[in-house]
């Protein structure tokens, strides 16, 4: 009996030992910094560097949330997400539907369509930055040349950086939609086809409804992706121009508060806002993973 118990205790010890490395990293670099945001938010930066920051309670939270720059940042972020996610999802869906047939050369098309999954934001930014350049880009040739140049233009800068994100998201969107299409039950599609449903009817009345879980998953993943992107803004627009071109999305404001204004308190307030918005979507994402938990057993 006691041998059994000591053996069980040894199993407990082993389990905690195996979990320890990951738990240590999570404690130091995920949970502690996340929780510390709530403390940082209550402390204001000293007026002169070198002095300690002082406790101001909710004053700083209130002033950040009431500031026009925060409102502008929030509006820009939402516009950006609204421009990126639907277009990326629909584009990915169209490509996936076109590629959902075993015909010659399809493997090659699939590879091409999923290729933007691996292109980094820096690569995308440099490539598109060249194409949008007022001198060497394609715009003068196309006869489109707004003043000021697109990436310095308060009207066009945000759509331009969204376009880059759409292109980058297209690969992921295609991959997700293709997986969804491949998981559809062939019998249902076949039955609908035998019933005489034509291509268009088929698409809207059979494929799209059946695909709705996939579309929802894509929406969640895409929204999280869009809220977390800012690299092309940093590379192509930069801190000096981001405010007047209305491209200072939330994450870019966090980055600027932190590394340019050296103001962790403001960065913490903005981080909490970003977290709160994303929570809805990360919870939805967790539910997708959870579905797999329930049937896999415990």
């Amino acid at each position: 009996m006691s041998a059994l118990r000591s053996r069980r205790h040894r199993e407990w010890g082993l389990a905690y030992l195996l979990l320890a490395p990951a738990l240590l990293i999570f404690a130091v670099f995920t949970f502690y910094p996340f929780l510390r945001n709530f403390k940082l938010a209550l402390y204001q930066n000293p007026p002169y560097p070198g002095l300690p920051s002082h406790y101001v309670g909710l004053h700083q939270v209130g002033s950040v949330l009431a500031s026009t720059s925060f409102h502008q940042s929030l509006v820009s972020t939402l516009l950006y997400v609204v421009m990126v996610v639907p277009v990326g999802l629909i584009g990915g869906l169209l490509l996936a539907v076109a590629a959902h047939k075993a015909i010659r050369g399809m493997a090659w098309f699939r590879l091409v369509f999923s290729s933007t999954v691996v292109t980094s934001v820096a690569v995308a930014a440099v490539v598109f930055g060249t194409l949008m350049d007022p001198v060497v880009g394609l715009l003068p040739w196309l006869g489109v040349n707004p003043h000021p140049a697109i990436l310095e233009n308060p009207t066009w800068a945000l759509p331009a950086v969204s376009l880059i994100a759409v292109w980058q998201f297209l690969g992921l969107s295609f991959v997700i939609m293709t997986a969804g299409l491949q998981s559809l039950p062939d019998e249902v599609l076949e039955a609908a086809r035998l019933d005489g449903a034509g291509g268009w009817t088929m698409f809207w009345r059979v494929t799209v409804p059946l695909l709705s879980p996939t579309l929802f998953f894509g929406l969640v993943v895409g929204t999280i992706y869009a809220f977390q992107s800012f690299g092309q803004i940093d590379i192509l627009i930069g801190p000096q121009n981001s405010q007047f071109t209305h491209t200072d999305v939330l994450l870019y404001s966090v980055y600027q508060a932190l590394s340019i204004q050296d103001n962790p308190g403001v960065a913490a307030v903005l981080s909490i806002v970003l977290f709160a918005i994303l929570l809805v979507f990360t919870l939805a994402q967790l539910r997708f993973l959870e579905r797999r938990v329930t049937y896999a057993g415990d």
Partner: protein
Amino acid sequence: MPATDTAVRPPAPAPPAARPPRRRHRRLRLVLRYTLLSIGAVVVLFPLYMAVVNSLLAPSQIAHQPPPFFPLHPQWGSYRKAWTEGDLAVYLRNSAIQTTIIVAGQLVTSVLAAYAFAFLEFPFKRTLFVVFLMTLMIPFEVTIATNLSTVSSLGWFNTFPGLTVPFLATGFGTFLLRQAFLQIPRDLREAAQLDGYGHFRFLWSVAVPLARPALAALGVFSFLSAWNQYLWPLLVTGNDNSVRTVQIGLKQLINTQLDQINVSLAGTVIAVVPLLILLVVFQKQLVRSLTSGAVK
């Protein structure tokens, strides 16, 4: 799916059975499909194609109107320049080191933790699993304010530990591998136990080999996300190019070589090639990891 019963309608009146027009119809649809696919491929590939074209042109030609869409006299010098003067060789080496550390670290910590969750019984198992899942709700972006001061107080600015240690564990990876381990029949563990296998031997010579597809998926996914990281390397490799990764190197390259766009683009092409190779070789694993949760 509630929508299916509305979709399956009573049979439509039979179409007129004229055979030749129908076959022509089918061929037309095939042509239409290929046309659509080709347009899609052109749209997707066009930006990268233009990057390759422009990287091979002399700067004076790039500004030429109408823009050249094909390099008639390719000039490969830009690649040599990006590699040496643009320090791309250094950046690529740094990215390779950073990525290798993160991939190896994530695989090890995830395998260990997933094994505990899948094969061992211990108090607070459920709670700890929820703790792992909770990490998925906290995006890294919302932790940077404090992580930056943590890394700086450890003296880790401009070092590989600073670049990599915060990413050495992953809730997603643990989850993925736990799922794979749970597929392994319990009897196998019992049989191995009777054969005198301890936990570590079972883990190494039975569980890990059986979970190889999931390990590959996680490895490719970690590689992709580590290699393409932008925010964190930007913050911790500020003004020192000794550990700067290739993504931040690209930003540097376009800031310093404005008059040499061909060199920046050559650098960009060099930076994307390793990942295109990754995609070609590991497409299946990558798709698997990117869609986990999308379909049952």
